[in-house]
């Protein structure tokens, strides 16, 4: 039977057919089962994107570290690395999974969280780079995004001497996730999940990024800009004066040379 000529012709077609069917099946399946298929396939099948739509969500990430009073084994500090919203609000609506990649010396150094709070608490002695990978829901069709920061355990050098024992070292970063041209589904998710003020008005407790702090930074940057422009004009003036003087000197030198 395998040697039948007609069968030989049909064989490649059959193979192609089978492959196509499995593809379709997998696509259908992925609708129902949450799996981390490659984003390429996802992008192929997701809905249309809304051009010109830009949504931003603020997040805060970083770590808190505190020196352990009693030091057992090598671990001098207890630290927590986290990802949260600036006002403590719920960010899990548009985040599907968060992976913290720690140093290899930790057991299971890839810690994944599908629900809030996205935190890892550990003990250790060393500072290393932590990679926080944020996965978005399938409906968004977005690739995961990585944030990099150093785990900070020790207080900054300038204040190292006067740091009281038991005071936690905070290393927070504020950033905003910008969703550009989201898909319709994701757009709905994002808009529906917005509850409460995103950024607190004033810094309270652990939430140090506030509208106030933003305003303060804006002010500082503006004063810096004006300083810089001032200096720039100053230098420009100096350069112009210098040019005039150079022209004069050259003229004098030429005259003196000729007279010599």
């Amino acid at each position, binding site marked *: 039977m395998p040697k039948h000529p007609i069968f030989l012709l049909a064989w490649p077609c059959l193979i192609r057919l089978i492959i196509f069917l499995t593809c379709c099946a997998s696509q259908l399946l992925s609708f129902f089962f949450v799996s981390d298929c490659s984003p390429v396939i996802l992008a192929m099948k997701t809905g*249309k*994107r*809304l*051009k*010109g739509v*830009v*949504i*931003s*969500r*603020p997040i805060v990430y970083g770590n808190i570290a505190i020196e352990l009073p009693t030091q057992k084994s090598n671990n001098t500090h207890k630290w927590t690395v986290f990802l949260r919203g600036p006002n403590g609000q719920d960010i899990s609506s548009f985040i599907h999974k968060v992976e913290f990649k720690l140093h290899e010396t930790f057991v299971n150094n890839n810690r994944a969280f599908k629900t809030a709070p996205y935190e890892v608490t550990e003990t250790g002695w060393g500072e290393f780079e932590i990679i926080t990978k944020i996965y*978005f829901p399938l409906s968004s069709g977005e*690739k995961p*995004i990585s944030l990099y920061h150093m785990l900070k355990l020790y207080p*900054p050098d300038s204040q190292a001497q006067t740091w009281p024992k038991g005071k936690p070292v905070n290393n927070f*970063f504020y*950033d*905003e*996730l*910008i969703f*550009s*041209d989201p898909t*319709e589904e994701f*757009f709905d998710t*994002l*808009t529906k999940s*917005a509850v409460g*003020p*995103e*950024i607190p008005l004033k810094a309270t407790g652990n939430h140090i990024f506030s509208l106030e*702090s*933003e305003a303060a*930074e*804006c002010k*500082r*940057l*503006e004063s*810096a*800009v*004006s300083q*810089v*422009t001032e*200096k*720039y004009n100053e*230098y*420009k003036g*100096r*350069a112009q004066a*210098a040019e005039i003087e*150079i*022209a004069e*000197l*050259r*003229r004098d*030198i*030429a*005259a*003196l*040379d000729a*007279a*010599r």
Partner: protein
Amino acid sequence: MFQQKHKHPKQHKHTAMSRELNSLYLENHTVPVPLADLFQAKPKFDTKAERWTWRPFKSSARTDNLTLSHWVKRNEKYTDYYYARYNAKTQPYQYTDLEYDKCIAPLDARWSKEETDYLLMLCRQFDLRFIVVHDRYSMHPDRPACVNADAAGEAVAAGDRPLRSLEDLKDRYYSICRALTKYRAGEDSRDPDDLPLQATNKLADDLALLGFDGDKERERKQYLELLFSRTKEEIEEEEMLIVEARRIESNERRLIHEREAMLNSHALFEEAPSSATIPSVKVQFTQAETVSAAGPLANGQPGSAAAPASAFAAAAAAASAGPDSATLPKVRKGAPDAIGIDGGASVRPMKKQKSIHGSPQPTTPVTPRVKSTTAAAAANKASANKAALGVSVASTDSVSAARGSSVVRNSMSPGRAASVGIIKQEHLDGPVQFGPVTFSTEDHLVNPAIIQIDTPETGPIFIAQRDARLGPGVFLRSDKLFPIPKNKLEAVKQFMTQLDLNSPNTIWPRPVMATAAVCDRFDTLQTTIIPLLDCKKVADKLETEIQVLRARKRMLMNDVGESRAEEIIKKLPPIDPSMIAAIRATTPSTPTIDSTPVAASRHNRKGSTASSRKKAARE
């Protein structure tokens, strides 16, 4: 037959193979060279042997009648000694007394006839070999001593000939020859001026052959002496100087180009009317903001490494230019084309232009106006901390609540757009107000540059220009800060730490709290720092140049004398600022070793032409 007492050692028959083996075996290091076959057969000739005879001969080169003998082929006829042809003899000129009196006597008073005859005799004797002639030339015709030995002591006595150098002898001889040639050529024809052309040419050739310039020869020999007698240090010094000069020449072009480029980038700043007062923070900021947004936009062009200098220059130029819109187009024209920007004035604030964003993909009917988050956020923040959704909520209320946002149109296309801006009359329905720029630090409102994008389905959309260039996807805002070229990164970072604005623990500068407002201002800051650093560099360079020039002037003043120098300087015309550009164009960055007088005179010439041109223009 007696018994052989000593047995001959068995003679092994050595074949080639065994010989090789033995040689390897015994480690005898001599290489057995196979001898060539020593036998040579007698060569075969097809002719019979020649016959040779021992024959006496004479040579025409000899003046005595010496007869020598040599072997010759018997059949050969003997003409002359073969090598007699090489007996070259020169025929030095010979004059008659008449000729002497006519043409030679008036030539040089220092030579008497006797001496001239003596010289010619020597020349004839030594075949015009002047070195020998000079050596043999003696004061007295009877004493064939060398002149140069103990010259001062013995030689000069009354009536003796004066000391003659080699050049003197040659000079005399060749001048005699020239005079004779001329005279003899002139003798043949009646009229010495009426010689046929051929003859004159021949005459000219002959004279050229006889040309000898005693002075030049003396000079040449002097130079050779100097060259020969250089000390080792002098030679090294000369070589170093040559290398220096070559290096300066090769770099000169490059230096001039660099200087031009730097000054060109600052020419932009020159052209913008110098706002003597720094414009107020409000207005200035927005202007700068818009152009800084323009800057990143230019850089956001896909795959384009935009010339950062031009973008910076443009941005900073706009920043320093202030609210005067008329200047910005001028600035732009001067700027080298940044990629993606239309050649020509593309920044036209205050004029209402829109960029049309051709969006090929249809969008489903979403709420028709989708405004950028920041404007909405601003609105919301302004309204006493209501639900501050960082969300595009398309409510005309929020839009109207937003205080006048400056609408700066840019004909630069966003990264994805295919088409370039077209001027269209601003036409917005709804209570959107676009008033003058307002920004106040108290309310920390953010008014970024907003452009309008037209989509076919949903109509006009407002979006912050900064965001318009993003592709689809998720980003971190801090990742989308204005990129700083690597070579300036360090300097900018240092500067920022000086200003105490850096977020700690980061490689590249980033703000502490990266919200939209902060990022906008941060970008402005970056784009103003970079021209500042450049300007600093230029100012420093110019000031060092001033130091050099001052030192030189001091030197010259010492040379010329203080009072005289002051007199000269007083008389000079004052420097016209318009001449500066002309002077700048002609001078190299540093005075070169040899060219200062030349350069200075060049300056004067150029300066004068510029000023004279100006005068002409005025008249």
